[in-house]
């Protein structure tokens, strides 16, 4: 088990990403943030906090579950870990920032985009990830990357955000399984 990013570094990183997001979206006026269940939700919450502080008013935040949009839904055993998606704002005409913890194949992001489009027609969809580990299987790239990491293909990365004591702390661990 190796620590890829400690809590402090994760916070610093997300703060920087928040600044970049606000800059890129012209002050973030039409911005909304959507986390991908489940790993992306905590990261999205921290990022929304930072962006909110930066632009001086809270950002509308939501969560989506991509289980129903998986490209292997028809062949995979159903493991109905489905939580309801909740998008408590109108996505039409907005800049929607999709947030996930780790970007690898890009398949999850493809599904998330498809899911989001079922809620309406955003002005633009952006993507922010805390870690980019490479290994893309689709032509997808993140607009904002916390950190690029180099880990073995089979390694599992756990991103955990301590939510009770310090809501803004983060741990990133690497486990090599199998």
């Amino acid at each position, binding site marked *: 088990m190796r620590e890829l990013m400690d809590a402090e570094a994760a916070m610093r990183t997300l703060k920087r990403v928040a600044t970049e997001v606000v800059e890129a979206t012209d002050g973030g006026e039409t911005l909304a943030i959507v986390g991908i269940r*489940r790993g992306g939700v905590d990261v999205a919450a921290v990022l929304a906090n930072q962006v909110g502080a930066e632009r001086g008013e809270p950002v509308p935040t939501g969560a989506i*579950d991509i*289980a*129903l*949009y998986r490209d292997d*839904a*028809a*062949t*995979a*055993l*159903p*493991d*109905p*870990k*489905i*939580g*309801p*998606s*909740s998008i408590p704002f109108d996505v039409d005409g907005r800049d929607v920032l999709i947030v996930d913890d780790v970007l690898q194949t890009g398949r999850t992001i493809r599904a998330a985009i*498809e*899911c989001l*489009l*079922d*809620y*309406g027609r955003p002005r633009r969809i952006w993507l922010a990830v805390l870690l980019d580990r490479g290994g893309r299987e689709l032509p997808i790239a993140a607009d904002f990357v916390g950190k690029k990491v180099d880990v073995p293909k089979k390694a599992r990365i756990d991103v955990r955000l301590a939510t009770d004591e310090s809501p803004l702390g983060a741990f990133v661990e690497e486990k090599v399984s199998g």
Partner: protein
Amino acid sequence: MSTVAPERAFPHRHLLSLDGYSREDVTQILDTAEAFFEVSRRAVRKVPTLRGKTVLHLFYEDSTRTRTSFELAAKRLSADTLNLSVKTSSVKKGESLNDTCRTLGAMHPDIVVIRHGASGAPHYVAEKMDARVVNAGDGMHAHPTQALLDAFTIRRKKGTLEGLKVAILGDIAHSRVARSGCRLLRLFGCDVTVVGPRTLVPKHFAEAFDVKVEDRLEPALEGADVVMALRIQRERLAEALLPSLREYSRIFGLDGKRLKLAKEDAIVMHPGPMNRGVEIQPDVADGAQSVILDQVEAGVATRMAVLYVLHGQGSEAS
């Protein structure tokens, strides 16, 4: 709104009745249905989950709400749907159920949803065909998706199914809704009382389903959390077992005055279609405690959940 269904492979291939279904199985379907309930309220009320799958609806009995509800459920999951209703099919020309199964089996449907007047017909189809089979009501035997959508509605309104007091009124004998409902509610330890004229309550119902039986409405309604009125099934000759519908309505009809015996926040359910003025009075059917339209809305989400949990089953088993 953050119910997350447990990560668990669904252990059944078919939904023929709730026999053999555990509390966990039912809970898994209801939790999954919560996610689909949300889908039905989006701008685009459709998800691509069952794209490329074929769902065959085989209806040997007339049905409006169950058939449309199943059809909508399959369509919202992006499955291709085929509808075969008896009036237009070769069944009218004398084809046997066995031959129908063989013919339709050659089209390789992934899921068959069947309603049939004969109890046990879905079991027969499940044996004859490769597809997963969902019972949409067979004779007087079972109607499991109705029980599930009722449970979904109750859970949403009451927060839990656990230990509720439930009264089921009316034509118990002909009711597959009552049978499946009792089976499910007893799994969650509900205190279930069925009540109706003796001619419409089977002799051994209490023992078979582990519920209480009453001859009079009052003790059943007293303190109830949920009151479920059943339809007098005229097409199954229920009337022949009653002196008159007016007398039935006077003694067993659910009206505002009688409903007061139940808890103040009790909910009123009816599987539909209603005989207004017979088993239920309009003031109750349309009243503040009625959740009859919620049941209809729950039907689509619950049936989506059933199709979803069954669809991937046995891809390695078959």
